[in-house]
């Protein structure tokens, strides 16, 4: 499956339909995966707020610059991912309109753009906060661009499980920026996003499995089948819901977070169970879980943000 011939796709990327000089600044902005960046900003902001609750003393202005550096670093890793995956992006329906496959930005320019922004964001974070945070950001970019994009994505069905660590690190980086260290609460935020990633992406992959199969990316439904994927989604959903709620008595968040994590966690597990019982090819149930997973993560982090800001205000 992974030996699929992608020469045709590569040829498309090598000879874009639109000349190089047609690229607009907005095309380069698209390389940064703005939607992923907004999630990174949100989760990193929560990490920062709780780092202040824990006694962080970084001046506010430097925290704002640090948040900017973290989001640009995340965007840079997205540009490197698009550079590396341009061949398969051109074939997949979901990604065919990205700047490189549609011929708006040449591949070498995307790589240079990603590398320059990676270096600048890490340097800026080191200057604005500390070397621990800068080192963690550099590791996050490396993990996403090299470990996930170049290695795991095309070689194992566990790609998004391990690769999910890159998407889970921003709140830890942000916490480190404010306090200079990474206590267990920061890693609890990491674990929530880490455990959330598999059910979130596999729910989407159940619907997009033909897309992934066409380009030879070994996503769980293509390799293990729909039934095994649904079982794993359910298992991860239970572990996620239990972990998120159980972290509260140990010092993550307050009563609002506990209520939100219990109520939304129960609904997450319920939808995962419905998917488990759904007949094969039932895309609607899978997309329902996918949609709710976004709401779930937003709900948890919004509750944490509200409680953190409240504690800072009193």
């Amino acid at each position, binding site marked *: 499956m992974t030996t699929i011939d992608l020469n045709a796709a590569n040829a498309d990327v090598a000879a874009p339909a639109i000349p190089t*000089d047609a690229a607009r600044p907005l095309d380069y902005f698209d390389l940064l995966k703005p939607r992923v960046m907004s999630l990174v900003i949100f989760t990193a902001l929560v990490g920062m707020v709780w780092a202040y609750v824990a006694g962080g003393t970084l001046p506010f202005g430097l925290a704002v610059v640090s948040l900017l550096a973290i989001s640009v670093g995340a965007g840079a890793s997205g540009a490197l991912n698009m550079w590396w995956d341009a061949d398969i992006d051109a074939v997949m329906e979901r990604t065919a309109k990205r700047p490189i496959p549609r011929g708006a930005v040449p591949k070498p320019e995307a790589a240079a753009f990603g590398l320059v922004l990676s270096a600048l964001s890490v340097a800026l974070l080191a200057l604005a906060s500390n070397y621990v945070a800068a080192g963690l950001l550099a590791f996050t970019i490396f993990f996403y661009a090299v470990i996930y994009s170049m290695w795991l994505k095309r070689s194992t069905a566990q790609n998004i499980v391990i690769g999910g660590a890159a998407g889970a690190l921003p709140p830890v980086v942000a916490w480190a920026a404010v306090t200079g260290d990474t206590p267990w609460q920061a890693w609890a935020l990491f674990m929530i996003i880490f455990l959330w990633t598999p059910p979130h992406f596999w729910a989407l992959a159940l619907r997009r499995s033909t897309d992934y199969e066409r380009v030879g990316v070994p996503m769980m439904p293509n390799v293990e089948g729909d039934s095994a994927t649904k079982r794993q989604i359910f298992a991860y959903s239970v572990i996620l819901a239990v972990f998120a709620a159980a972290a509260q008595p140990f010092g993550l968040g307050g009563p609002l977070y506990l209520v939100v994590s219990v109520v939304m966690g129960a609904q997450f597990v319920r939808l995962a169970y419905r998917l488990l019982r759904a007949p094969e090819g039932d895309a609607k149930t899978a997309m329902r879980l996918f949609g709710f997973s976004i709401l779930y993560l937003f709900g948890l982090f919004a509750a944490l943000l509200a409680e953190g800001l409240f504690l800072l205000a009193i």
Partner: protein
Amino acid sequence: MADLMTEDEQKRRKQRNLAIAGGIAAFIVLVYLVTLMRIGASVSGGG
């Protein structure tokens, strides 16, 4: 070389150049501000 470019291509190149210039200027200003803030924090913190 510029003669081979269409008017639209020239316009987009200009937009890109302005975006790069803006990005560099913003980065310089940020580094300057961060330096001032760090100095301020050190002074007020006695460090």
